[in-house]
């Protein structure tokens, strides 16, 4: 090993050094890790703290999911006391509340996908048609704004607007209706949730599409025009195919968050009166686990949810790769 460059620190960051004479290359091949460590130890040392973070706060909790299969005692071991097998899974599979919240999760997830995925595309296409740069910039800047707000602020605004004396009820009143206590009505929760979600995300969601639209080759429009395509046809045959990779990537990512439907927002917006439509898996496991202290039971539900989420991403990614050749990795 003495033949390894002792002045290694002089070339620690560039690309791999050019091939060395034979003897050294053999050493490098036989002990590649040792050599890499010797050359790049400073780089590796920079990775230690971040790796510690991932290990402790990302991977340890993944292992911590074993409490879904073990009896957990508060104050006891993080990994539980003794094995219980699938007891907690059987418990929630036979728990009628679980199936209610499961259905709610699917419905809210589907509605969110149905509105929050296509609307940014529509808005981006509309913005793209605005001739005046100043005007377009202005609309963009305004529409990005809600993205920067805390969910607490958004929830608080929703409650103010929908309160009995709020704007929406003023409109209802102007048409001669009786004030509706929207926040207390289960029948309104889904509309409220989805529209507040659209309000907060639609503008920001246009960024990537607008960027993709600017990269479309101008000749394609020209060719389409020569073929007699009007504006609408150009949108359909040139613009949409042009942003398809972006669309697919965002669709896959959206599907990935399908099961996790805006947990924090629901937690802020719902109340016992609206549980029949508003309670989703994540809020249910929050109440069962953290409020009532059945941590093992809640961990089982959480693990189930996470596995479904991962399966959804992987299958969406697989389908997309095969069908249109776009994939996340």
């Amino acid at each position, binding site marked *: 090993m003495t033949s390894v460059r002792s002045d290694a620190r002089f070339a620690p960051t560039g690309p791999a050094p050019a091939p060395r004479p034979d003897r050294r290359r053999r050493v490098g091949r036989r002990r590649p890790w040792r050599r890499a460590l010797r050359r790049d130890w400073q780089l590796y040392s920079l990775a230690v703290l971040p790796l510690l973070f991932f290990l402790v706060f990302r991977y340890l909790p993944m292992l911590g999911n074993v409490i879904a299969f073990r009896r957990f005692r508060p104050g006891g071991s993080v990994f539980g006391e003794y094995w219980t097998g699938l007891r907690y899974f059987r418990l929630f599979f036979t728990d009628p509340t679980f199936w209610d919240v499961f259905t709610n999760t699917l419905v809210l997830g589907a509605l969110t996908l149905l509105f929050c995925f296509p609307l940014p595309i529509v808005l981006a296409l509309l913005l793209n048609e605005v001739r005046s740069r100043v005007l377009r910039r202005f609309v963009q800047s305004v529409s990005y704004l809600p993205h920067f*707000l805390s969910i607490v602020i958004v929830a608080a605004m929703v409650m103010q607007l929908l309160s009995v004396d709020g704007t929406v009820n003023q409109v209802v009143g102007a048409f001669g209706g009786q004030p509706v*206590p929207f926040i*207390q009505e289960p029948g309104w929760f889904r509309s409220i949730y989805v529209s507040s979600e659209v309000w907060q995300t639609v503008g920001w969601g246009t960024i990537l599409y607008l960027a993709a639209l600017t990269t479309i080759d101008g000749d394609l429009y020209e060719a389409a025009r020569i073929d007699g395509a009007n504006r609408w046809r150009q949108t359909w045959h040139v613009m949409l195919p042009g942003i398809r990779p972006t669309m697919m990537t965002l669709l896959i990512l959206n599907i990935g968050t399908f099961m996790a439907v805006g947990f924090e927002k629901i937690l802020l917006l719902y109340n016992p009166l609206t549980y029949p439509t508003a309670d989703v898996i994540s809020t249910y496991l929050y109440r069962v686990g953290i409020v009532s202290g059945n941590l093992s039971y809640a961990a089982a539900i*959480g693990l189930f949810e*996470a596995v479904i989420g991962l399966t959804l991403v992987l299958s969406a990614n697989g389908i997309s790769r095969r069908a249109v050749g776009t994939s996340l990795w």
Partner: protein
Amino acid sequence: MVTPRPTRGYRVFQAVNAVVLTAVVVVTVYPFLTIVARSLSDNAAIVSGQVNLVPRGFNLTAYRVVTSDPAFWISYRNTVVYTVVATLISVVLTTCYAFVLSKKHLRGRTALVGIAVFTMFFTGGLIPNYVLVTSLGLKNTVWAVALPNAINVFNLLVMKAFFESLPVELEEAAAVDGLGTYGTLLRIVLPLSKAMVATMVLFYAVSFWNSWFAAFLYMDRQDLLPVTVYLRNLIVGASDATQTGGGLGSGDDIVQAAATIQSVTIVLTVLPILAVYPFIQRYFVSGIMLGAVKG
């Protein structure tokens, strides 16, 4: 691109488009305006449903009530402290790791990237995280807010893409001049990355400023809450009062007093974000683009 004379159909479309986009702007801005109007109005006017865009019965009582509440200022100070500490940790860790990941020659680089990216798609979930943070004894400390979300993988990939775009020759020259990895990072790479680091600071600072759930979960003491949780307790308290039909004395008073107080608290919480928004917006947009191209 030569633009042909617009057809009549396209002119109609432009008109419709203008109406739609105006509606988007109005719908986006309206909630802010109505909240400001409510915060400046008289309780009685709000109760009778008269307040929408223009304050009725203009007064600053609610502002005085909120700003004279010590709990409000304590929570505001907590938000500032949490944001500064958490952002500092996050930016340092993200920069270090992104720098390491940007070195194409590094052995094990793919594994190091994979370790980070996998956590985007699979996480331990709420309960194991809660158990972990609790058993590490982080409850009621700033670390419960700062550490569990120290590295955002999306931000990490953005920064990695940026470092990869820097010319390799620069660092080779630094190595020839005898600078080690640390020296190269501190004296060559970071000075060239000021805009990127600023973007990261903004990304993290805004997200920590806005966050509430970690503090809500891990802070038991009133004097440790950030302003978002302060506001949350205010709005949930108000809706509880509505549900129970005002159990405490004359319930209507409580609920309606809360309406102006809530509006004022919303205005005061959102103000810092609105104040910096025009300046930070373009950094965010360029950061997102960078992440999208390479990420």
